[in-house]
């Protein structure tokens, strides 16, 4: 990830970060400032830029730059490629709100970008600078004070990880990362 800061120990950094007074959205750090400049017109905001919420920060090459066509470009997102109409791209996206207990702002991520629970959880961990730990069917998320939950189509709050990924990604409407005693309570269920 571009400009990411690697923490030696999540837990140590965690408490520090959690109590730090900052002006900024939860999860904002060094990597956010390396994001590409905002698009000049609304319609030109490519979905690739919208998904800067992803773990990977992508800079969009503008068409003004003379393309270096002799060498093969590295993997950066390019406007209008692959050629999918924005209508279809938007239809395939599933942005859900993500809240973390104790954080003042919510974030939004596109869960269709992820293919599995580990990918999603890793992205959440990086976005919010916390540890979620590993899932077990019996005990939920052990070893951390955070537990990821989601609200499904029927409005019920469920623990992330119980159902197959594809079922989860099509029914998840909202994510909430619970913290503290409430989260620990889930492990007892």
């Amino acid at each position, binding site marked *: 990830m571009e400009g990411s800061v690697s923490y030696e120990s999540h837990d140590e950094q965690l408490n520090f970060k959690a109590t730090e007074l900052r002006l900024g959205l939860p999860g904002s750090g060094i990597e956010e400032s390396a994001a590409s400049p905002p698009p*000049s017109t609304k*319609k030109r905001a490519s979905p690739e830029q919208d998904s800067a919420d992803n773990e990977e920060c992508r800079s969009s090459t503008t*068409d003004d730059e003379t*393309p270096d*066509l002799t060498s093969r470009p590295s993997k950066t997102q390019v406007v209008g490629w692959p050629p999918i109409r924005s209508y279809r*791209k938007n239809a395939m996206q599933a942005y859900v709100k993500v809240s973390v207990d104790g954080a003042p702002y919510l974030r939004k991520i596109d869960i269709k970008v992820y293919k599995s629970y580990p990918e999603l959880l890793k992205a959440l961990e990086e976005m919010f600078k916390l540890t979620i730990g590993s899932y077990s069917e019996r005990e939920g998320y052990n070893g951390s004070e955070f537990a990821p939950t989601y609200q499904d189509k*029927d409005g019920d709050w469920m623990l992330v990880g119980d159902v197959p990924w594809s079922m989860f990604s099509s029914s998840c409407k909202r994510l909430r990362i619970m913290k503290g005693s409430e989260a620990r309570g889930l492990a007892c269920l």
Partner: protein
Amino acid sequence: MGDDPSSSSQMSEDDDDRSPPLDPSSSNKARNCSSGSGCDYIIPYPDQVLENVLENVLCFLTARQDRNAASLVCKSWYRAEALTRSGLFIGNCYAVSPRRATARFTRVRAVSIKGKPRFADFNLMPPNWGAHFRPWVSAMAKAYPWLEKVYLKRMSVTDDDLALLAESFPGFKELLLVCCDGFGTSGLAVVASKCRQLKVLDLIESEVLDDDVDWICCFPESLTCLESLIFDCVECHINFEALERLVMRSPLLKKLRLNRHVSIGQLHRLMVRAPQLTHLGTGSFSTLEGNPQGDQELDYVSAFAACKSLVCLSGFREILPDQLPAIYPVCANLTNLNFSYANITAEQLIPVIRHCHKLQIFWVLDSVCDEGLKAVAATCKELRELRVFPVNAREDTEGPVSEVGLQAISEGCRKLQSILYFCQRMTNAAVIAMSKNCPDLVVFRLCIMGRHRPDHATGESMDEGFGAIVMNCKKLTRLAVSGLLTDQAFSYIGQFGKLVRTLSVAFAGDSDMGLKYLLEGCPKLQKLEIRDSPFGDSALRSGLHHYYNMRFLWMSSCLLTREGCQDVAQALPRLVVEVMKSDEEEETGEYVDILYLYRSLEGQRDDIPKFVDIL
């Protein structure tokens, strides 16, 4: 859209306006017989006879290429053809002015107009480039009071334009808006309420603004003439009760495509009301918030079984895969199935597709994987058109579909005519196999999403694969290339692609020679769109002999200079050469961002935005 073939009404109209009959005494074009015997017999002017005959005969000519040819024979034929053309097709709204078109063709009932270039769909051009419907609707309001049908593609249409349309044409019957924008539910409301003869309202992949207007309520309270109501692209909530009542009072309704705000329970109610449907877009195909348990218990299988005429199924926008078996009763009759918004696995697809023996058109997401495509190949022997879209439109090394799926399709679906295939990796072998197994291919569009990606197995370029396509598919008229391609690929296309009319190129080629091969080799080339390829001014000049035969040329992020484009503009006065910045704020660099050139009878248009320069 071609000419409107509905000849019966037009024949009776034309009878009234026919030129005077061949009665010598009444004909004012008669002249004296000039034979030597000195008789006073007056014969009608021979061209008059010809015109009458022509008008009667030309009514049967519907293909616009035929009509264009007929109009070139002589002035008489030109006039007769102009009087009898009822369907007007404008392939580029800036190639001819509304005034000129309406002056020449005075008895038009159906109009098709296309606007923006296709690459605008992918955000390659700033918005507000043009293609406004306003000047057209204003001219037609005066010229064509009997207008019945309007088809627009990639045009900017405002609510006021729709209001003018609704008010100006009392017999208006069909409105089709494809990839259009600029209007909202207010515009739809006016059309619904004022076009009392409306048969068709089709909104396809258009952006519709939510003005909070309940347009469904605006249809007439009496029985309607509606045969087709397509609004799956409309992202606004609709008044479902009003929709249900509308369906109940539309006995002729055959095509209904719902948007994703219609739940599966609501779908059930509509299907029960309209078992005569032939085309159904199922909306979300899911329980939406607020309709949980009740929806799950309805008998969907019976609802589908009752629709005995259903041949075309789409929608499935938020699909609950568990509900998919409900469609089994109709699968055997389906000719057209669109799963391209349904994120389903191979396992979920297979039980459905193995019933679909008659399927001719199939759109699907790559979530079904190569395995799903194999199942399609095994069952769908009548398949003519396949489109495989990506769930994740990114450049990745691995993807769920590959050369394996393409090979399977080529082996199973021998009648394939059109394919659009998005993948992360491909091999020449699979493409060559398709070129041999599917000789009827007319459209071949392969999008290897990783730019410059070579043959996955051999590491070579994809030249040979695309070469085989143009060599073996003798009917090919549309081609889109991708992957690692050298100038050799273009040499093949120039050499063998003699029928190619539409070509799409991205991140391909080594030098000017690539483009030269195309422009010098493909005599039928009409629409050429190129992006991010190393073609420069010299290549551009090599097409001077051909640009008047083309509808347009688009080149973005290539190696064209302003001077090079200027040379072309100077050499060809009837060409409009537009040069654009892709980003309004950025400074212009050494190369032109976007070149878009097209033939036109009108010269420079008068509605250019700031970011466009016409040379």
